[in-house]
């Protein structure tokens, strides 16, 4: 069974060769290259990974991601981004997936009514065309929506059962104003101890086309590794989704300093100590291989 890190980010220094957006956390001269990731993967017996675009949504901003996927085609699959204001999301999606290794797209909003009592017509959702096109082209949708959008996912998953959906980072949907960067340069999401996702993410387990990342613990926990305050939520996800729809991920590079890549490869020994060998194998890579259709490793 391969071991697969199902969600992380790499980026090069901003340049004309690899243009990208910059900010305080990833300024132009910062780089977290794929080769640095591969050293960590090699050291901790991780075979493959999903590279998730960061640093901009336009086609040009994806240049480094495409470069990595082309250079190491049997090791990585990619997830792209879609500009919120693009008039032609279908063309953008097709261009980025045309034999490149990008298998789907990450969405941070759904774009429907925020009042759960409002009449729902999914054709009026801002992301409807993206979902429809993903259904037509078998693209994966990678979801990290805001709390206000959490209830809308069910309508789309229900309407498009053929779309493979991966809920990022424990299926938690950050609340407005609850995101910040911590002193170690990591995303931090202020999350109440009573997790509202219990009522949305948990219920979505009915749909076989939905999987969940067990990742991002550092961002939600109020404790240091091994983030024991999240153990109950991990158990709930295991009970509802089962190991065949859960995927381990590190969220590299944010975790390099704390808790460290290698430490995270052992997070389930702490949070889910009663996993069977098969369940452990599923979560550490089996699910990602099957659900995302990872290629067999070659020699490149």
């Amino acid at each position, binding site marked *: 069974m391969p071991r697969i890190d199902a969600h992380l980010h790499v980026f090069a220094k901003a340049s004309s060769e690899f243009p990208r957006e910059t900010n305080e956390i990833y300024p132009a001269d910062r780089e977290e290259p794929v080769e640095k990731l591969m050293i960590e993967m090699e050291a901790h017996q991780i075979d493959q990974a999903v590279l998730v675009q960061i640093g901009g949504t336009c086609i040009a901003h994806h240049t480094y991601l495409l470069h990595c996927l082309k250079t190491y085609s049997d090791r990585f699959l990619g997830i792209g981004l879609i500009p919120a204001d693009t008039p032609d999301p279908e063309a953008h999606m097709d261009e980025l997936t045309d034999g490149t290794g990008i298998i789907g797209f990450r969405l941070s909003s759904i774009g429907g009514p*925020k009042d759960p009592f409002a009449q729902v017509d999914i054709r009026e959702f801002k992301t409807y065309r993206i979902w429809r096109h993903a259904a037509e082209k078998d693209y994966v949708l990678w979801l990290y929506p805001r*709390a206000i959008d959490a209830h809308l996912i069910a309508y789309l*998953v*229900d309407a498009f059962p053929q779309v493979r959906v991966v809920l990022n980072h424990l299926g938690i949907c950050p*609340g407005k104003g609850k995101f910040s960067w911590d002193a170690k340069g990591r995303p931090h999401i202020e999350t109440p101890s009573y997790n*509202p996702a219990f009522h*949305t993410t948990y*219920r979505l387990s*009915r749909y076989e086309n939905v999987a969940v990342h067990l990742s991002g613990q550092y961002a939600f926990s109020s404790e240091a590794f091994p983030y024991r305050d999240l153990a109950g939520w991990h158990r709930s996800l295991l009970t509802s989704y089962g190991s065949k729809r859960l995927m381990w991920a590190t969220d590299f590079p944010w975790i390099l300093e704390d808790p460290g890549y290698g430490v995270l490869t052992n997070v389930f020994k702490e949070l889910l100590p009663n996993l069977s060998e098969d369940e452990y194998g599923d979560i550490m890579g089996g699910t990602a291989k099957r659900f995302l259709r990872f290629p067999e490793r070659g020699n490149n």
Partner: protein
Amino acid sequence: MMIRPTEAQHKQWEEEGYLVFENAIEGDELRRLQKAFDYWAEKCKPEWIERLEAGEATATFYDIPNVLEKDEVFVDIVDCPSYYGSLMAFTDDDLIFLAPQVRMVPPWPLSYTGWHPDVARTNPLHIKVQIYVNDVEPGCGEFAFVPGSHKPNVGPYSRPKWQESMPGHKTLPGKAGTAIMFNTYGWHTAMDNHSDTPRKSIILIYEKRTPGRVDAKRFASIAHYCTTPQRRKLFSLEEE
């Protein structure tokens, strides 16, 4: 006034773990309840949406907070004669009220909750009364229960992926004013709501008294509504 359960109701309670009281609340009392429910549900909705956006509340339902203080009708239904006598009978006349959940549930492709019991059998007898504030037709988020699942040495039960896959379950749609009393050791849920009508209901939570279970301060703010010894005891305003 207290209407004690019939022999048939006693038998059903023991064997199946639930009772249905049709028209438990009716006429002017029902209209009074519906008016107060709708008023406060609307009034409290903006704050819920704000909390929802902030990631502090779920989108799948909301409860009107501190509802007993908002309108006396919510206190009056706690010892409504239609079912109060049964509650007393099943707890050996030693009943305490724990909390109300005055709940708005929007339509959603999924039920807002899965099959579950509420408490372990080590807990003192724990009873809920669910009151429909609007008509709840079949397929509109109606309450459902597995008759007999409250008994020891039955099961084991597990949560099925689809609500309707629960073996032996009974769905309980009903008209506004219907009250469903159930032993919460038993497995229960809300079915999927395939309509575009929200489910409006009130869940009243009771328990057989154990000393110190409810602090006398919990319901102090509604003490002025509790002028009889029976009601003061029900709301734990005074220990015997």
